[in-house]
């Protein structure tokens, strides 16, 4: 069961926008956002880590490609939207 995520494109864009509004550094907000993301999605992250380790052990490049590209569709839509902002 995959989790829909919207990192990193919209996160970066949001971090830049909010940082400019609040007079803060985008790096600060980005760091906070990643920390929160990893905390909230800890179980999914741990599961992905175990899956990746198994795929690496078995030399399953196709499986790794699918894992590495799991959020591609969402990220692509977000990137196209951000390009037009």
């Amino acid at each position, binding site marked *: 069961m995959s989790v829909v*995520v919207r*990192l*990193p*494109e919209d996160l*970066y*864009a949001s971090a830049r926008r909010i940082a400019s509004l609040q007079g803060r*550094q985008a*790096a*600060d907000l*980005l*760091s906070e956002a*990643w*920390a929160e*993301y990893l905390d909230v*999605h800890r179980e999914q*992250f*741990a599961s*992905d*880590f*175990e*899956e*990746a*380790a198994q795929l*690496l*052990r078995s030399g399953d*490049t*196709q499986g*790794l*490609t699918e*894992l*590495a*590209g*799991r*959020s*591609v*569709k969402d*990220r*692509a*839509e977000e*990137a*196209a939207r*951000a*390009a*037009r902002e």
Partner: protein
Amino acid sequence: MPSGPLINIARHGSYLCVSYELRVTARCLAEDLGRPGDDPFSRLANHEIVVAFINRRRDSPEDTRQVAPLSTGRTVYRLAYGNRHRGATWYDEANRVVWLLAYAQHDFAAAGDAFPYFKELDAADRLLPTADDYRALFEARAARFAEVVAFEAANLLSAARASPGTERRAIIAGQLAVGLVVEIVEDLEGVEEITVALRLEDLTPESLPILLAALFPDSAFDDIQTPTSLAGRVLGKNEIGYRALIER
């Protein structure tokens, strides 16, 4: 098996540079260059505008002369080959890619000026890359990452082991900047401590666990710590750190 960094070579739909890649939008491929959407970059390399694209954007993603004004507000640069061939490129810094957005022959006497054509595309929202363009870009990156992550992670580990206590750096799959240090644990024979720092801007939710699994293949996820320093330096705000003890 990859034998070195993927730099200054055509790979599927991209031409890979040091810190970004060159790509052609599907619309430009089909409508302006008359090529199939899945044509690999290497097959385009004999086209005049693609020759210029590589030669002029390989070392610098930006230029001086722009296609302006545009309704998108994006900084789109002119690209030229000889007197007739004209292109429009955009450096999408957030996604580390320079897009060839459009191409036309610049011929006032016959086909007309290229730049009004570029502006027509802009006005119709057909100039910038679409979600399908980004999807192809991200899928290609995922495939490249999966293909080389184990090999390049092992290379980085090997280099770090050769000089314990010294940070070694690499850009995994040309995408993910990594600093890594191996330190010998004196009280535990045969055990080393591996600390890695990753640049946040490069990460995706999937590349992070894959890279960690490549670096810490025998570790349980709960045994991986999140340090705030590496080899005596405090991690930057744009970095995230991971550390684990490894039995050699």
